[in-house]
């Protein structure tokens, strides 16, 4: 919602809101492209290409539609366009290939919200563990380093948190 508010201000010509929007988006896009291409430099090029493409096509945002769906549709288009142009058959792990072609419209926004709701039922420390390992996709070691825990503590914590979630999920349904 926050990004959409900035976007609406930008469409009215508010350059400061626009600058904030682009800065925040560049972070999201960097994380998105980092998962799709091999080097950080390639990811950065795609971030810039996407921001430029967005800028030239601001008028194609339909204010009745979710804002992130618009941004990621452009990002995905630039990614595929980039693959095609380079004729590089970059290898994407099979389980991630779906994400490349997935239709990221309202469905995924809804799914994200559901996941958030479920996560919010966990205590803060466990929530963070699940978010980092399962949603951000960090390894156990990276998560441990980030939170200042031992690796085994992370493993046990994640395991317990998932068990709690699974229980809640089965109770709900």
């Amino acid at each position, binding site marked *: 919602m926050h990004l959409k508010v900035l976007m609406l201000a930008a469409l009215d010509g508010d350059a400061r809101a626009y600058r904030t929007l682009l800065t925040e988006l560049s972070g999201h896009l960097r994380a998105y492209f980092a998962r799709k291409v091999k080097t950080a430099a390639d990811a950065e090029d795609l971030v810039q290409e996407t921001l430029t493409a967005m800028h030239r096509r601001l008028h194609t*945002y339909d204010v009745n*539609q979710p804002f*992130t769906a618009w941004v990621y549709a452009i990002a995905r288009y630039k990614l595929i366009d980039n693959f095609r142009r380079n004729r590089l058959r970059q290898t994407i792990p099979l389980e991630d290939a779906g994400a490349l072609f997935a239709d990221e419209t309202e469905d995924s926004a809804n799914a994200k919200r559901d996941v958030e709701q479920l996560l919010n039922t966990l205590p803060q420390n466990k929530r963070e563990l699940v978010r980092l390992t399962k949603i951000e996709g960090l390894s156990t070691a990276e998560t441990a380093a980030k939170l200042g825990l031992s690796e085994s503590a992370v493993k046990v914590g994640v395991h317990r948190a998932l068990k709690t979630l699974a229980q809640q999920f089965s109770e709900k349904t």
Partner: protein
Amino acid sequence: MKTDDLIAELSGTLRPTPPGAGVMPLVLGIGIGAAVSAVLMFFWLGLRPDLMPAMHSSPFWMKFGYTLVFAALAFWAALRLAHPGTDAKTATRSIALPVAAMLALGVFELMRSPAPPAQLFYGTSHDVCPERIFVVSLPIFLGALWGLRRMAPTRLALTGAIAGLFAGAAGAWVYAFHCGESGALFVSVWYTLGIVSVGVLGALLGRFVLRW
């Protein structure tokens, strides 16, 4: 260039986006294309001599309605395809409705009419009808591509195909002011063939022409 510098540059050149700007390029391209196509039709083929009396007959309005509904649905689909992140499935599939309805009408006519089936099927102009629709549609097709390139289609082949179907249907609508055919079966086959041929052209060109 650093991303931060790019962001500073982009935000420095921000202009307010007027409401409705998302639709303008397509509307403009199609408008100009349709005008050219109407002029082309008028001087190349001419209006049917019996246009005035024909306007009081139902076959004229059948062709008029079929092509107009087809074009309207394809326009809706093209518009959605040109806005990233907008679901275009319903709009794209809806194009099948007028085609199915027209075909049903044609089959109904075949079963009910006393005229011989071959006459209903071939009419008097089946050998020129699809080609003429194709040619009359081209200006509209070019206008639609021009407009779509200024928007942001992310599925190029599909968008090209839909743009072609739109142009074909709009061109067929223009052609209906010349065409003296009155059979439902004829329209459901030969008009549709002409329209689809532009759609195929669009599907083939989309990937190359619509990149942005």
